[in-house]
């Protein structure tokens, strides 16, 4: 597997304001990378923030904080960063006199090379320093900051390339397919909207080609979604995503609504498509047994944090975090004799606070979110 990074999520936060007093912190500062051609899975219970993460990546939400890079290009930048940038510019305008200005400029140059998030923080520090020591901020620096702001605004816009290269498959195929449209129009819509086909005939040819790839028939072209079974409908959803020839597909609980026997069909199809096209998957699920089978790496989410991340072997064979252990112990197996004596690990969810923990590296691939004390305690067991 090549280790080229396709998607990089840095300190992503997604908060939803419910009322004046209450804000739901659905995702609260997570970072991960997804490499080209691999399948990365996010697992966790409902409300853990795994679906929100997927939706933030594909820009269904404006993110609260953090940055997301796709194909080495920034695609999202958090609201909080915008605010900070604007704040700095506003403050800077007031101006202060002094001789420290050259120092500050040199600093700004150096910061250019590091990531935006870190850079912003340091900008702020420099600014408060400048205010305290009454240094006037150079006009050029302000211009540079303004450029930064503009660049961030441009990066944050959805462009055509992004829309084609990142696709999504949803959980409920009945709810995600327009019941009044025929299969050919549902699957071909992306092509038409993006101007990738010039005639109806060309569209039809392309749709037929993709239908065959996902195991449907040419006869299905002019049927409506309700005329299909659940598994077939999910194949239509997959065809709609794959026809754009994407680099990256987010599958949000794509198999949860299907029967076990059909789940296997869909998973095998996704895997075959990956082998053929080299597409990268972000797989979001709560079913850990299917995840084990399809993924290269897994991140376990709980309450908006990634509590453990690693390769499938790391997470399934050597789980460290008690939440991961409780999830693994809950997987039902078709083995009555084992099930009758099996003990479930119960994870005490009261009084947990992940903000105190830091990301601890257990190996090159395996990380866990814990305080030093917790890590020691867990590793002892």
């Amino acid at each position, binding site marked *: 597997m090549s280790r080229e990074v396709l998607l990089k999520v840095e300190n992503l936060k997604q908060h939803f304001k419910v009322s004046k007093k209450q804000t739901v912190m659905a995702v609260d500062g997570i970072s991960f990378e997804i490499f080209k051609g691999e399948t990365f899975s996010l697992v966790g219970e409902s409300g853990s923030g795994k679906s929100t993460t997927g939706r933030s990546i594909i820009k269904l939400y404006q993110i609260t904080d953090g940055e997301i890079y796709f194909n080495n290009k920034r695609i999202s930048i958090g609201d909080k960063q915008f605010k900070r940038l604007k704040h700095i510019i506003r403050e800077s305008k007031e101006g202060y006199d002094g001789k420290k200005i050259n120092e500050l400029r040199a600093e700004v140059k150096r910061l250019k090379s590091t990531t935006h998030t870190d850079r912003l923080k340091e900008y702020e520090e420099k600014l408060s320093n400048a205010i305290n020591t009454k240094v006037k901020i150079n006009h050029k620096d302000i211009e540079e900051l303004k450029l930064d702001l503009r660049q961030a605004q441009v990066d944050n816009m959805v462009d055509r390339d992004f829309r084609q290269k990142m696709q999504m498959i949803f959980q409920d195929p009945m709810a995600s397919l327009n019941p009044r449209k025929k299969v050919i129009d549902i699957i071909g819509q992306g092509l038409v909207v993006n101007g990738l086909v010039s005639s109806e005939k060309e569209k039809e040819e392309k749709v037929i080609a993709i239908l065959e790839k996902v195991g449907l028939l040419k006869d299905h072209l002019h049927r409506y979604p309700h005329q299909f079974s659940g598994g077939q409908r999910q194949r239509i959803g997959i065809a709609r995503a794959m026809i754009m020839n994407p680099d990256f597909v987010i599958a949000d609980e794509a198999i949860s609504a299907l029967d076990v026997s059909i789940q296997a069909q869909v998973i095998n199809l996704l895997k075959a498509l990956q082998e053929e096209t080299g597409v990268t998957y972000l797989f979001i699920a709560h079913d850990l047994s299917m995840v084990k*089978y399809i993924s290269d790496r897994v991140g376990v989410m709980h309450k908006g944090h990634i509590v453990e991340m690693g390769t499938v072997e790391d997470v399934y064979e050597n789980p460290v975090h008690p939440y991961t252990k409780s999830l693994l112990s809950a997987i039902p197996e078709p083995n009555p004799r084992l099930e009758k004596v099996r003990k479930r690990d119960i994870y005490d969810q009261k009084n947990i606070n992940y903000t105190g923990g830091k990301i601890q590296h257990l190996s090159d691939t395996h990380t866990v979110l814990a305080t030093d004390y917790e890590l020691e305690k867990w590793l002892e067991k």
Partner: protein
Amino acid sequence: MKKILRVNDLRISFKTNSGNVQAIRGVSFNLFKGETLAIVGESGSGKSVTTKAIMGMLANNATVEQGSILFDGNDILKLTKRELTKIRGSRISMIFQDPMTSLNPTMTIGKQIMESMLEHRKMKRSDAKIKVIELLDLVGIESPSKRFKSYPHQLSGGMRQRVVIAIALASEPDILIADEPTTALDVTIQSQILELIKELQMKLKISIIFITHDLGVVANMADRVAVMYAGKIVEYGLSDEIYYDSKHPYTWGLLASVPDMSTKVDMLYSIPGTTPNLISPPVGDAFAYRSEHTLKIDFEEQPPFFKVSDTHYVASWLLHEYAPKIEMPEHLQRRIKLMLSEEY
């Protein structure tokens, strides 16, 4: 053991615009007192229709063409509406898949449980309230007297399903029908709910019919398993017989499509094709079109039940004495061998 319910050669069809769908095509089984019977099958196999018939809640376009459901010496299918109301919800209760849609969002959970109690039993309101709090405690809801006044939306999915179970148990039923009660829940919550149902069964000695499409889920619960396909039971037996020694290729397929946690495979096994259209069901074995081991007779005549043991029966021509010997797929054999060799 005492038979508590007997379903006899049940046939049900639904009138639809495109024709008569023969959803149930001759289903017979017994439910014994205190046991858990799991009915397993894909969507469209008829498992839910069977239980709806038992509850007397078939849709308006359904016709019972043949058969009987004997409960307490009476045929449920022949009862009047009033007689049915006496049984339904009081002696036979049901829990559904989605706890949000089966609870009333405008009523506190305490009231909802009390409602079912007062409906079926004569008691004072104050006594009923005490009983409800006991029940909430029984199904594992913390500080039940406070929760009495909560609305469904204030509870998590797992808690809601506990409330639904409490409602089902409020009338102290003889039979509890659980229709995919954990499918909408997370794995951790699922295991808690399964454990709860099992625990309650031990305490209250009720009989349970558990409907699911996932054989993994019921391994812990089921005493007996019936596998349904295209409106018929194709194999039934004791839990061990189905999990470790099944004979029908469809059961093999269901078992093999549950991913194996202990070994890594390249391809997940899946049953090819989809369930047949039951508007015009196949003449012979309905599974023949999806099976790897199809015989000529499969297309001509429906297989009868062949006896494997006193408790284990299989409807497949492969068990006929003249049929070629077909063994369970090798990878499944290996897996089962591994399961049985481990000590617990």
